[in-house]
């Protein structure tokens, strides 16, 4: 099987706004696919079309035969549960709506609650839980039926770092069970650590697409060097500014210099220039992070 989800030439308009513009991509079976983009890029519209709660104006979204068994698992960006209802009843209800038998939904819900440290609170009302714990219930409601395809819109928002790690583990567990996961998120470090492939959208179109390595290669980002220098780092940056192998140089601290080389620039040449022109005390290399690529590609200030 080549793809779990195929999106071809999809267009979606809202009155005078074109939210998605001829977008095409594929999600492979069993992978974690991240959909990234600044606010208003069209991610949530794309997610809603993937789930089928809104329809594209043009193009098509298909789940090739066998890639989708039963309802999708869907965690919407706008979270919401029946607040006045007991937790277990809420989970049972969503389980049944997603195709489980009531007893099966109940057993799976109890196991999920235990996994999230919420055992003993089955009969409590949903609104008695903290926001983070309500998000766990929402996640359980979306994935109780162990879907073959899960679409998670901003799964990490509003979670503390410990719970973010727990959600990462849950998503990896889904993947290990054969589930194809499509997620949209703004937490670039988390996406970088979990996504197999990603697509960056801006103004409804795809601007980057592939694995992180493919994207690094496509965006032409060269090697990144971090130097500890003797003296003022800002002066050191000025001293190398005119060198033609340089993409950028900036002081990140009084004694730390961040240097980005042009693509294909040999590191040896760079080290020679740096040693000649600055007082290098230590040096380390680093790859460009997803966050850096994102900010560079779609513009600063677009992250939450």
């Amino acid at each position: 099987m080549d793809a779990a989800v195929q999106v071809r030439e999809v267009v979606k308009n809202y009155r005078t706004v074109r939210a998605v513009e001829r977008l095409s991509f594929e999600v492979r079976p069993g992978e974690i696919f991240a959909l990234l983009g600044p606010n208003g890029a069209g991610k949530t519209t794309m997610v809603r079309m993937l789930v089928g709660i809104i329809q594209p104006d043009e193009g098509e979204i298909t789940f090739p035969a066998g890639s989708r068994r039963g309802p999708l698992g869907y965690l919407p960006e706008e979270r919401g549960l029946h607040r006045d209802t007991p937790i277990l009843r809420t989970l049972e209800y969503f389980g049944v709506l997603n195709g489980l038998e009531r007893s099966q939904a109940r057993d799976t819900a109890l196991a999920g609650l235990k996994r999230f440290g919420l055992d003993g609170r089955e009969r409590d009302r949903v609104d008695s839980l903290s926001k983070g714990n309500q998000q766990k219930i929402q996640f359980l409601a979306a994935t109780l039926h162990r879907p073959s395809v899960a679409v998670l819109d901003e799964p990490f928002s509003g979670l503390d770092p410990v719970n973010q790690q727990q959600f990462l583990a849950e998503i990896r567990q889904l993947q290990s069970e054969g589930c194809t996961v499509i997620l949209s998120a703004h937490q670039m470090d988390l996406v970088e650590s979990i996504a197999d492939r990603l697509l960056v959208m801006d103004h409804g179109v795809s601007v980057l697409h592939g694995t992180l390595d493919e994207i690094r290669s496509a965006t032409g980002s060269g090697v990144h060097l971090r130097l500890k220098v003797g003296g003022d780092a800002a002066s050191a940056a000025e001293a190398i500014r005119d060198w033609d192998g340089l993409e950028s140089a900036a002081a990140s601290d009084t004694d730390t210099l961040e240097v980005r080389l042009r693509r294909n620039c040999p590191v040896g040449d760079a080290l020679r220039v740096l040693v000649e022109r600055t007082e290098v005390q230590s040096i380390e290399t680093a790859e460009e992070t997803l966050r850096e690529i994102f900010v560079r590609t779609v513009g600063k200030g677009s992250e939450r």
Partner: protein
Amino acid sequence: MSLRIARAVARWEYERFAKPKDLFIGTLFFALMFGVFDFARFFMDKKESEEKTIVVAGAETLGFGEEQFLDRFRLEAAGDRTLETLQAALHEKKIDAILDVSDSRTAELRVLRDRGWHGELLLRLQAAVSEQRLAESDLDPAQLAALLQPMEVSVVHQSAAESGGRAGSLTVLIVVGTMLLALFIGFSYVFVAITGEKTQKVTESILAAITPQEWIDGKILGLIGVIFANLVCYGLGYLLAKAVGAAFFDRPFALPSGIEDPVSMMWVVLFSLFGFGFWLTLFSLVAATISDPNTSSRSSMMMLPFLPLGLLLVGMDHPDTLWMRVLALIPGLSPTAMPIRLLRGEPHWMEVILSLLLLALVTAMFRRAAGKVFGVSMLMTGKEPSFREVWRWARS
């Protein structure tokens, strides 16, 4: 449509709103309400049936003595008392009325306010005066008895099905009132269920799992269940009040007339069922287009089923007129109009079937349209869709 899903949604909605504790409290509340109503009627009836004292100024003109009884009415001659004295006694409620006789053909009955017993008193007075006049004539006792013998007239129903008797106005008012009350309750549940889900943002999660048609079908079925549970509670409350009245206060244990006819009641229940389906589907449609229930002017549309009430009540005493026959065929009005005809009139069975079919057909069409509109409007927040947009979605 998956019946399994619609049933799961129906069960969810039912369990959300028909909580056993609330239903039990509701039953007790209605028992108390009916009990208070019954006792209020009992005491009013008792007061009405008490002996009434009427002072007759000019009693001699009518040939009445110092004191005369006409059943429970005690007629007492005014004697030396002036009209002013009598009026003072009337205001102090020492007497119930003054009969001021001008001559043998004219009199005035002076009372503080209209009472139910006035008509009965006047009838008895007329009879007593006629009897007095006849007694003063030269007729012999046998002729007199023959003259005074009232004619006995009994009603014989020519339609075999009607020999059990038709329901009284009270029964119809109870049936129609209960249906409207149930609709009002249904309206509030629909409103809370749908706008609540919109504001609590659960719609996306649900619509990702099931179709809008399954969702609205389940909702309507569940809420019809809630309405019927409430109706059963009213019924139980009524029976409980009657049973307590009969056991401890010697009150009669009687159901409203006509309600015991199982065939008519079966039709009434069927029309109620489809009527609730019709109106709840419409309510759901409107509620789904409301973004903020606190500010939306569309909430007032929920009063639509109450508007035709006046038209129907006009026809209550004339259930088989053309007016009522037409109203009983119009879907939306028929759930109230046809039960009135069934309980009070004699609709042809073809009319009943046609009315029910029309209602079922329009409800089914509404259901399909509601499914289409529901899927779109439930996801909308902010500006409410215009009626033109809603119409376009419904036809899509």
